[in-house]
Each structure stands twice: as C-alpha cells, then as structure tokens.
C-alpha cells in the first residue's frame, strides 16, 4: 500500500493543506493574539471569550458554514471554490486561527508585565518589543503552533463537507480513512490511520526538538 502513488498524493495533499492552513492561521493569529494580550480597549474580555470559544469550534459546524458560503448559490459561490483544496484551507483556517490567537494571548499574558516597560525603557520600538516578547514566549508559542497543526491535520468533518472527498483532487488522509471504513476496507483504513499518526508525530517531533532547544536549562 505504501507504494501506491495515490496514497502519496493523498498524503502530500493532506500536508500541503494542513501546512498552508497552519501558516495562514499563524499570520492571522499571532498578531491578533498579541493585540489581545497587550492592548487595552473596550470589549477586550468579550473578544477574548469569543476567541476562546472559537478554540473549540466543531469542524462540522465550520464545514457547514463554509459550505453555505461557497455553495454555487451562496454569497461566495461565484468564486467556484467549493470542493477544491482552497475550500478545505478556508475551513481549516477558521478552525485553527482561534487556537493560535487564544494560545498566543495566553502565552504573552503569563509574561511579567514589567518586561514591556523594561524593553521600552531600553529604547525598543513597538515592533522590537513585540518581537522580544515573542522570543521570550517562544516555548508556549511553539505549543500553539503544534496545537493548530494537530487540529487541522486530524479534522475530517470540514474537509469532507467543503472538499467533497474527490479522488485525486480533494481527498485527504482523514476523508480517505472515513471512505475506506464505510466500504468495510478496515485494513486500508488502519494503514491510512497509522500513516496519519506517523506524519503527525514527525511534524510534532520536529517542532518539539526546536521548542526544547530553546527551553530554559
């Protein structure tokens, strides 16, 4: 089975989609989480509560919402994205960016608040201050990255609903497992499951090595 080119195509697509979703989530979630952690504005706690709720969004609900938006007759139907890898990426970003945002905010809030004063008092610009705070919080921030990747590589509901599990186009490891199970091909389903676990382990292992290299001795 490992020599089946289709399996490698599915695996590669799973990694591409999950990797891109995680990257986009990072680009949105890191600044947003930083703003939530450091900013002072009315409604901040409500905003935080919304983000924290978003961390537990059920993928099928996200899938339903994105499908409604991208459906041919939906408000974004003209984009013709339904049943494409791009649709899966959109759904996965909605699932994972609150994870990055919420964990980024939590990571920065546990830092000593005087650290900001100290950095500014040494002549840091706002950007330099934020970069230093990210550096100080790099261990929990890498944990946020791992959590976001884990959330998207393992979700099935949204990928199935907006991707359609089309062979050679939008089939990813999780949707392939569902399909094989529904057909009673348990051996294939188990093999795909092991492959998914192995990939998840390898990615997290690499991130953990980076994380622990920066750990306080």
């Amino acid at each position, binding site marked *: 089975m490992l020599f089946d080119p289709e399996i490698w195509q599915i695996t590669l697509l799973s990694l591409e989609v999950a990797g891109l979703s995680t990257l986009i989530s990072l680009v949105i979630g890191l600044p947003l989480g930083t703003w939530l952690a450091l900013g002072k504005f009315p409604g901040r706690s409500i905003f935080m509560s919304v983000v924290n709720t978003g961390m537990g969004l059920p993928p099928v609900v996200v899938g339903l919402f994105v499908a409604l938006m991208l459906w041919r007759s939906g408000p974004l139907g003209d984009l013709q994205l339904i049943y494409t890898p791009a649709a899966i990426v959109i759904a996965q970003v909605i699932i994972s960016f609150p994870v990055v945002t919420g964990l980024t905010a939590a990571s920065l809030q546990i830092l000593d608040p005087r650290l900001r004063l100290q950095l500014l008092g*040494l002549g840091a610009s706002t950007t330099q201050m934020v970069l230093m705070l990210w550096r100080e919080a790099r261990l929990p921030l890498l944990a946020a990255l791992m959590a976001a990747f884990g959330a998207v590589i393992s979700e099935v509901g949204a990928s199935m609903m907006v991707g359609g599990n089309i062979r050679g186009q939008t089939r990813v490891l999780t949707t392939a497992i569902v399909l094989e199970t529904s057909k009673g091909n348990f051996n294939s389903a188990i093999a795909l499951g092991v492959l998914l676990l192995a990939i998840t382990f390898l990615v997290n292992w690499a991130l953990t090595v980076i994380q622990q290299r920066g750990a306080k001795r």
Partner: protein
Amino acid sequence: MIEIRDLRVRRGERTVLEVGHLQIAKNEVLAIVGPNGAGKSTLLLALARLLRRDGGDILFNGMSVAGESDLVFRRRIALVLQDPLLFDTSVFDNIAIGLRFRGLHKSDIQPRVNVWLESLGSAQLKNRRASELSGGEGQRVSLARALVLEPELLLLDEPFGALDPPTRNRLLDDLKRILPESRTTTIFITHNLTEARQLAGRMAIIIAGRVRQTGLVTEIINAPADEDVRSFLAAENGGY
C-alpha cells in the same frame, strides 16, 4: 541640566503626582526618596514616558522634549527596575540589547559591552545564560545593560530593593564609583535613606505625590521642611 516642569499624572479624578519644578544638574545623582505609595515609581515611569501624563514638560539643557516622539525620547534615557528582568539569553546579549535596538553594528557593540562587563565586575559571566544568575549578578547585568547605552538620563527604580544587604552594599560601592566616572546624570528612586546618602548628593522628598523638599541629603535630615517630612525621616532613621 535636566528640568522637570509641572509634571502631572491623574488616575480618574485624583491627581496622584504633581511635580512643580525639579532640576538635576549634569552628571548629578539625585535621589527621590519617600514612603511606599508616595508616587516615586509613578514619577519615574512618567519621566520615561511609560505612563500617560496629564501635563508638564521635561527640558534637556533648556530644550523641551515635548515635540519628540516617545521612541526618540526613550532612546536618550535608560531605565533600571527593582528586578533585573533579564531576557532568556546570554549575559552578553542582554547587555547588547539596547544597542541592537538602536541599530549599532556588531563591531561597535562588542567593545562597549565588554567595557561595562569589566566595569561591573561581570566579565566572567559574559557567556552565561541570564536565567542562571543570582539576584546580585542579575542586577549588575541589568545596570550594565542600561549604562552601556550612555544615556543622557539614567533612571533607577529601587535597584537594590530585592538584594540581600552584603550584595546591596557591594553594588552600592561599585555604583558610587561608576556613576561619577561615567558622568551619568541619574535619578535614583529609593525609600532607603542610607542608600540615598551613599549614592546621591541631593535628594527630593516625595510624599503623597508632591515633592515636599529638595536639597542636600544632610540638609534635609537636619532641617525637615514640614511635619510629614520629619515623620518620614524619623520612621526611616531606623535604617539610617
């Protein structure tokens, strides 16, 4: 010379700090002394523009800094807080950080950092990770990190407050030597009269957010301006 004029900080309707006029001569060390909650740290943070001010101005050599952006102004000063607040990197990188913020080249940074590591007796710590330092070592690094910037005004907020007496005395002795040598104009916040007397020529007594008396340390101790100052000095004399 540095002058502070009509500096005011309010919290809600309450004015928590009001400094009419305070002057610090070039190369002088001025101690700001007062009881806990008197507004000493508020004054320091307001001076560093790390706190919203509700009026007032600071003049460097007669020139107002009101038109300068916070960043430009903050790069003329340096701040040391009670805890070292070092970053999770090497001692060298901690001391170099402010110079890097200012965009100095590596070849300029290295000799400057080395000078201050030597001056504060911390050369042997250069490659150690900051998290491995003792409180006293950490505060030396924190002072080196500020002094390496050669600030026009150094702001020290109870830098010895978290140290044990022997460590504090050693660091006080070193600063007593270093500040005049480096000609660093310094505002030194403390509630400890002994520290003020050792490090500063003049002091300003601040009580309830107002500067009550300014003058030579011995002058103030011998002739307090009012009953509040007298009571504060009497209470502090245990440590004097």
